[in-house]
């Protein structure tokens, strides 16, 4: 991996995700720190990335590297963790029943990915599906429910969720910019994951008996 990518591009990219993940745009800007459960999910993602060979920790920190190289590798590891945490802060609703349901949904998906995926491509695909699904649920489905007025999507969802009080599902109204900003943040995160130093499957060289 090139020094520029490891020391500059990756930390800047992941720190940008960290910054934008907690940004909430309304009539005023607020920066929301991650809830505790996002930290748990961030640790799980980190496990998924290492297990799925998306992030080769020994390519970033090892005894064969110099102190400076290890330090920049440590910054990449730390910024990846914070970015993962903030991504879950971003795609999780702020409060109420949706907050609980989303966290359970994300937890189950990550446990499934941790147990099932062992190669880089499938882990990257899984990460895309997890954050993409959460984005659609929060910014499109819940966003439509929380919009004032009577929209087509709201009527359909109301029919589907008959029996559930919509009051428990509605969230503060999202600013029109919020969805676009969240989408850009998630794309940045996925690009950053794809740029991480990976480890290919180990190959044993066996001497021919001929």
């Amino acid at each position, binding site marked *: 991996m090139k020094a520029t990518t490891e020391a*500059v591009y990756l930390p800047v990219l992941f720190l940008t995700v960290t910054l934008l993940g907690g940004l909430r745009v309304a009539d005023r800007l607020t920066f929301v720190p991650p809830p505790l459960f996002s930290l748990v999910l961030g640790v799980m993602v980190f496990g998924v990335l290492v297990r799925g060979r998306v992030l080769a920790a020994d390519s970033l920190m090892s005894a064969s590297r110099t102190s400076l190289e290890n*330090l920049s590798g440590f*910054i990449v590891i730390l910024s990846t963790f914070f970015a993962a945490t903030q991504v879950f802060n971003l795609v999780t609703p702020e409060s109420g029943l949706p907050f609980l349901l989303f966290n359970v949904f994300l937890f189950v998906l990550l446990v499934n990915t941790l147990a099932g995926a062992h190669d880089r491509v499938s882990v990257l695909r899984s990460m895309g599906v997890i954050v993409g699904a959460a984005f659609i649920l929060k910014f499109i489905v819940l966003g439509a429910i929380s919009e004032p007025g009577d929209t087509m999507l709201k009527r359909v969802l109301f029919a589907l969720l008959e029996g559930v009080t919509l009051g428990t599902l509605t969230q503060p109204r999202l600013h029109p910019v919020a969805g676009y900003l969240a989408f850009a943040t998630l794309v940045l995160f996925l690009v950053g994951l794809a740029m991480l130093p990976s480890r290919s499957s180990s190959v044993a060289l066996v001497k021919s008996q001929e």
Partner: protein
Amino acid sequence: MWMQDRSVRVLGLVLALCYAAFIVWLYVSQPQTLAEVTGGLTASVGAYRINQQAFDDGLGLFRREQHDAARAAFERADPAGQDARTQFYIAYSYYRSGWGRVYQDNEMFKKGLEHAEKAIALASGGRLVVDDPGLAMHNADELRAELAEGLRVEPSDFNPMRVFRQRK
């Protein structure tokens, strides 16, 4: 080549640490406008300056009891809300706008209290004294206490003799 690699890593390290510090600062100080971001950053290195012309205009309007206009000028003088003295005058202006012989405007007092607390938080050591002979309260703590007292409902609020009290 080795030197170049080392320079890039050092540069990246400095960049990442500065960026991380900036993010932590944003999350702690919660600025809401770009002016507050730039003002906060310049204040943190001691380079923040208010618009003196706008401040003098505000002071003139304040002394002529034109408080809405005075607040607009003070806000223009200190768009980032980083100057304790300007915040004190904004709080005082809200106090004078909201003060009434029979009752006071709670909304004005609430805003005044916010600015008084901000002024105290910004002042060095939390102590702010403004030497202005036109004011009856020179200390930010006194102003804050007066505003907080105005917001509390107490038996003395129903004392008819209150109509003879003086505005500070």
